[in-house]
């Protein structure tokens, strides 16, 4: 997830177009089994990532693990099949991940949410509320670091009490704190005029006495 406002020329492209391209690219990448074509896709994917104007040091940190995993996959495939098949698989995986990085690094979280909300809108016919699903998604992303820091604080407190290998001693207080926070967060959302009522499926006719 990008922490600052995305820059570069790709940021100006609508989120729907970028995610649409990612969908099509994933199909094409798996439909084409030739090394030269995969090399061309890889060059295109690298260019797309560079167009996000993400600092190279940050990119290096993001991509290090990816290259390590793909390297292991490549080595395994070379030993078990031909080098061409290994190269196609490795390049395919790299290109796909790089395109995905290019999309997420160039798209603001709010744009992604708006897109998901639009895509989920047809689910209202099934009685689902796309705005609520979208809010739940954003809150999940918002609160993962908070829950992690609470977990670390509780674990530290239990270590201080000599409870070194006791998952229950950590998980029970974590669960209680998370539920308490959830209650307060729910009040905070209400206080900011969030309408949690699901959208009406059709206008209610006036009631006559």
């Amino acid at each position, binding site marked *: *997830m990008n*922490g*600052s*406002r995305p820059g570069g020329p790709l940021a100006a492209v609508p989120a729907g177009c970028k995610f649409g391209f990612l969908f099509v690219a994933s199909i094409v990448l798996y439909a084409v089994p030739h090394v030269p074509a995969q090399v061309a896709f890889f060059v295109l994917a690298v260019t797309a990532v560079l167009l996000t104007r993400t600092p190279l040091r940050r990119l290096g940190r993001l991509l290090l693990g990816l290259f390590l995993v793909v390297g292991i996959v490549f080595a395994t495939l070379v030993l078990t099949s031909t080098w061409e098949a290994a190269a196609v698989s490795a390049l395919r995986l790299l290109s796909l991940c790089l395109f995905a990085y290019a999309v997420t690094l160039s798209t*603001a*979280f*709010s744009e992604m949410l708006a897109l998901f909300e639009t895509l989920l809108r047809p689910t209202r016919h099934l009685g689902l509320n796309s705005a609520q699903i979208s*809010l739940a998604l*954003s*809150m999940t*992303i*918002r609160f993962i*670091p*908070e829950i992690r*820091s609470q977990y670390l604080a509780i674990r530290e407190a239990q270590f201080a009490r000599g409870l070194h290998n006791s998952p229950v001693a950590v998980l029970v207080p974590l669960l209680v704190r998370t539920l308490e*926070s959830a209650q*307060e*967060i729910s*009040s*905070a*959302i*209400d*206080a*900011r*005029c*969030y*309408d949690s009522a699901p959208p009406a499926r059709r206008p209610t006719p006036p009631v006559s006495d």
Partner: protein
Amino acid sequence: MPPEPANPGIRLTGVTVTREGTDVLRDVDLTLDEHRIAVIGLNGSGKSTLVRLLNALVLPTRGTVRVGELTTAQDAKRIRRQVGFVFQNPENQIVMPLVAEDIAFGVKNLGLRGTELTDRVDAVLDRLGITHLRDRESYTLSGGEKQMVALASVLVMEPSTVVFDEPTTMLDRRNRRRLQRTIDHLDQRAIVVTHDLEMISAYERTLVVHEGRIAFDGEPAAALDFYCRISDS
């Protein structure tokens, strides 16, 4: 829908709040018209319940709470536009991953979109001097920054009254002073629940809540004397 008055008074009439068979607040009659009002009291005295009544986060078991012509039992959403609420722990108030998105959340709920929304968010960030936080991830903020973002998320909705529930509890001295100055300069009516007695010395009115009742209502100096007596008893 008729326009709301600029700064409507808040009136509580015969308000009792009961939880699990116990009266948390009993027979409260109050009219809140002043610009700066403090609410103090011991832990568990009913202060937070009292202020949560003001924007319909808590509804009275008996009695009515009116903001202008509106009652919390019937017009909760309209009242929440007029009475903003800053929570004790800003971590629970910030619900979006990025600061700008979080500040925009409330006004989006009021139907604002596009440049009007962006302008309003930028204006409140500028007013509080936190424009540099605009694109930061919420979880990376310090405690003081989180409290300012939480306040921005309330002020952006342009309420006529802002309720603060122990806003300085989790802040160091420097951030406490900063928040205090910010509250002092607000155009809105401020109702502040606090244990920070230094903060309220210049307020127009102080309520002391004790065992679910308004035990004292008057000038800050006399209220502090009363509060010290009940604290020491």
